[in-house]
């Protein structure tokens, strides 16, 4: 249980289900309802992987990830969204630390695969 996944989603169904799912494969997990809650917690530096909802109230998931990257906190993120058609957001989310962009509802394997991938994630273009 040395690896930790942080889930940030404002929807309680999503939060609770992902927490249970990730924990069932023996990966540590912390859930947050908003970007602000995540930033204010003790975990921003400890999380090995971020699962971020794109349309969070206030700071969006994309903005949170960008923020972390800007702070040199490189952590792989996978984005989840309920809006399949929002191509603009999909392109916005794209970065070297972006592992996946999943549209709800996704299968549990898709997510777990993405999480596993994220935990082993090495950017294609290393940064310093």
């Amino acid at each position: 249980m040395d690896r930790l996944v942080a889930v940030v989603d404002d929807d309680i169904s999503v939060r609770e289900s992902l927490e249970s799912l990730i924990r069932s494969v023996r990966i540590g997990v912390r859930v947050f309802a908003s970007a602000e809650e995540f930033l204010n917690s003790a975990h921003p530096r400890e999380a090995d992987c971020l699962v971020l909802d794109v349309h969070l109230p206030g700071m969006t998931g994309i903005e949170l990830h960008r923020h972390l990257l800007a702070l040199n906190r490189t952590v792989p993120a996978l984005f989840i969204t309920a809006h399949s058609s929002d191509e603009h957001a999909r392109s916005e989310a794209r970065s070297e630390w972006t592992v996946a962009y999943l549209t709800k509802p996704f299968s549990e394997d898709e997510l777990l695969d993405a999480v596993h991938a994220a935990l082993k994630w090495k950017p294609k273009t290393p940064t310093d």
Partner: protein
Amino acid sequence: MPLTTRSGFVGVRRRTSVVAALGTCLAYGLLLTTPVHALDPNTRLTQYTHTSWRMQDGSAPSGMYSIAQTADGFLWFLSSRGEIYRFDGVRFRPWRKPADAESIGRIRNLVGDQAGGLWALGAQGVAHLKDDVVSGHVVLDGLMPNPQNVSIDADGSIWVVRGANGTSEPLCHVTEQTVECFGKADGIPITPLDALLADGNGGFWLGGQTALVHWRAGVSETYPLEGVVANGAPGILSLARGPDGSIWVGVFSEGAGHGLARLEGGAVRSFVTPTFDGSKLHVFALRFDHDGNLWVGTDSNGILRVRGNVVDRYARAEGLSGSYVRAFYEDRERSVWAATNDGIDKFHDPRVTSFTVAEGLSSDSAVGLLASRDGTIWVANSDSLDHIVGGSVTSVRWPGQQVSSLLEDRRGNLWVGANDGLYLLKDGRFRRLSEPNRQPLGLIFGLIEDTDGNVWAHCFCGGTGKLLRIRDFEVQEEFSAPQVPGGRLAPDAQAGIWIGGRTGDLMLFRHGVLNRIPTGSHDNPFPNQVVAQPDGSVLAAFDDGLVGLRQGATQRMTTRNGLPCGGILSFVQNGDKRWWLNTQCGVVEFPDSELQRWWADPEAIIRIRVHDVLDGARPSARPPFNSAASSPDGRVWFVNSGVVQMLDPARLSRPALPAQTYIEAIVVDRKELPATHDLELSPHPRDLEIDYTSPSFLIPQKVRFRYRLDPVDRDWRDADTRRQAFYTDLAPGRYSFRVMACNSDGVWNDSATTLEFAVAPAFYQTLWFRALCAALSFALLGAAYRLRIRHLQRESRKLRDVVETIPAIVFEAGPDGSGAFANRRWLEYTGSSQRQHGEFAPEDRAWRESTCIHPGDLDGYVSCWRRAIATGQPFELELRLRRADGEYRWFLARHVPLRDEQGRTLKWFGTATDIEDQKQAEQERERLRQLEADLAHINRVSLMGELAASIAHEVNQPLTGVVSNGGACLRWLAGDAPNLEEAREAAGRIVRDGKRAGEVIARIRALTRRTVVSRGSLDLNESIREVLALVGDQAKRNNVMIRTPFADDLSPVLGDQVQVQQVVLNLVMNAIEAMSGVGDRARELVITTSNVDQEQVQVTVEDSGVGLDPTTVQKAFEAFYTTKPGGMGMGLSICRSILQSHGGRLWATARDGSGTLFHFTLPKCDDGKSATGVTGA
């Protein structure tokens, strides 16, 4: 018989006054009694009840001259003017002289006979009257107006004397038809004659101007009057025979042997006593009454009454109506009547006789009395002691002052308590009792002697009340309150004394022991008198009744037991065991048997006889001491109002005559009719008065009446003393009036007097008049009927014109639908030539064809028609009728039955109105409604389309949860050590999230459904929240902040949830849309709800968008107006129509700064206001 000598007894002119007699006869001694008046208490003139009717005060119609009584009880008075009045004790009724009585001239005398008839003696003749009709009359002149000088024979004929000068035959015997006169030839020595008296043996005493003559069978004796009668003076005017046979002569001139005289020793001599001189009078009338008193009527001196040697006077000063007394009459009730020049006077023996100053009492301040065993009545008076012995009131020389108590002890000694001590009359002299300690005994209130011979006195001596026991004329013991209080004293029959104390208690003081028994008297608890009976019972008189104490128990006799009032001043039992209660309203008398009955039953109604003020009683308010006594002769004595009053039971036992009632007249509308039998009254009497009476003269105020008129009265009506009965508006018919009366003893005579009469019907109440009225009514009715028929025919023609020209098809049919007949419009429309239809035959092809009804509608019509015929109920139906050109048009057919009073159908009426145009218009409207509904639906669906992304988001969230939880669950279950707890939790979340997704779907479906409008109570806040749940993501993506400051107490509204939510959705979507271009300010959507007033709820949707200019605001609600590039422009228009159909409204206002406010209202929901309808919206 010798001629009378002219000598005679010379009257002694000596009248000794009372005072003189008192003075001269006063002998000095230890005790002297002075006779003041010899008095027979039964006959003393001043003690009579005197009533007078005077001309001056209007109670008598005239001065009277003659009195008679007929057998029916009425008194008849002849006035000095010759008028006759009938008198019933209350009213003088003028008697109309019958026409055939005119010949007797002015009536001068009136005599009643035994048979109930009346002789009227006139100046020219004599008439006999019976029942107001002259039964016979004779011509006879020379009769003079000198009443009483008529003698009636046993056969009813009369003897009269003629007083006119020149009459040769002065004595006449008159029957109804004959007259026979006697004169000198018959041995009558003098003429004319003025007085007549039958001697009882067939002879007569006759009085003339100069002599008294006895004449019998042609033989006469003459007794000349002494002296000379003045020329022209009448001489002897009246004669009377006393009970002892003495002949009394009334001479109308003064002088020796004149005036009041009697035949004495063969000569007519004036009646003279030491105190009276009869020769000084002009005597007009003489009469002996039943008791043997001689009544003398004088000219100017009033009445004298002679009994033995005692002469009483009664003149104007005493209250006589006049000074000149013309006649006396003693009626059947033994009242003596006097006719005077100014009225009438009546004297009768009162039941309660008073002794006053007039009878010799020293003053009218008597305070107590004692009846001693020798018959003497001792009267304690103010500063004097009087006594009544053998009817004489005597004043006693008495050394003390105010007498305050009296006692006769067993040895016959008289004890007199006074305010200055106690005196004893012993051996003819008063002795003052020696006083202990030389202190005056003071005021003695009460004196009694007990069975042991002790005399007890209640005194107020030495400044305090004391009870003294005296024996051997010495005070032995003194007792004071509170040990032994004083009070009313009475000896007990066994031993000791009773004391009635001030507290209302009765106390027995015997052998030094005081036993106290309360009586419960509160009014004035000091008893007025206490008497202990030999049987051990005690009676005490109180202001609120008589209290009896027997065997330790008390009972009370009050007004509830029939006493006329409660205040009993004193009481006594007399020799014949009757009780006499002197009360504040008269003397109450009842036998001992009634007292015994009361002892047995304290509630018993006592049968009593009351002697009240009308009987002569003079009740006091307060009792003096010892105010009741019974003398050995059985008479009872009371002190009342300062005088002594006496009742003689022997005289009281004479009952009053039974009351006889007579009906005097019927007064119809102020016209008096004689009360003859079978009287026929004129029609419609408005006011009917029946006058009735009962002649009674003793106490007419006590005569009461009852009457009834059959068939008007159901029962007897109490008229009390009223002597008229009144009725109004009697209907035609026969009536029977009955009346009865009670006499002055209160005894009713149950045999009523009856008067039958009839009221004739008025012309309008007669049969022939009613028949005529009926005939006239029929004739009028006939004429009216004919007029009505003509009118109806006109109306009918008018109506037919209306029916024929009315723009509708009209028909009538029989109750079974047959024989239908249509108007001209039918012919014009259908082109049919047939107005009349035959049988109702729906199966018949020809019939079906003849109806011109569209085949598609015909069966429906026939079935409606059949049901209507069966049930008699009207119906209406829309159907198509074929026009003459073959085109079908829609008609509204209505069938209405005409029913009779029993509800049976007599006829059917039908109309068919062309509604084709309305029908088409309605279909058009229906199409439009459908279009509108479709549009609304489209609007909703397109709104949903706009929301699709938002909705997808709403659904995807829970779906993500479901899938992820499912995966988790499977993983928790897999492996060697499945974590069931985690799996269970995950499974639980799957269920929750699945439901959540389902709810979203259901909401969408509800909003897009074509649905039945279902109005009901709606929580608007909740409805808005549901809408916001759908648009939440849409707002988020547009960076729109939604605030919902809802009113917490928002009233529920009446509305359809889907439609209302559609409006909200429209407005919210518009608002989000309006803010899409806003970048310089917060995108804010505020939804406010509020209870705007009692009736409505208001919702405001506020955005901070670009806003609408005023012209756009108006246009915004028009259909097809839109500012959106892809919009249809239907949204607001639909919203407005939805709200209007809800009874609400929708409008927009500009927001301060920028933005728009959309407001809508909805009516609040009342219970029972919900409704359901079908619409496509």
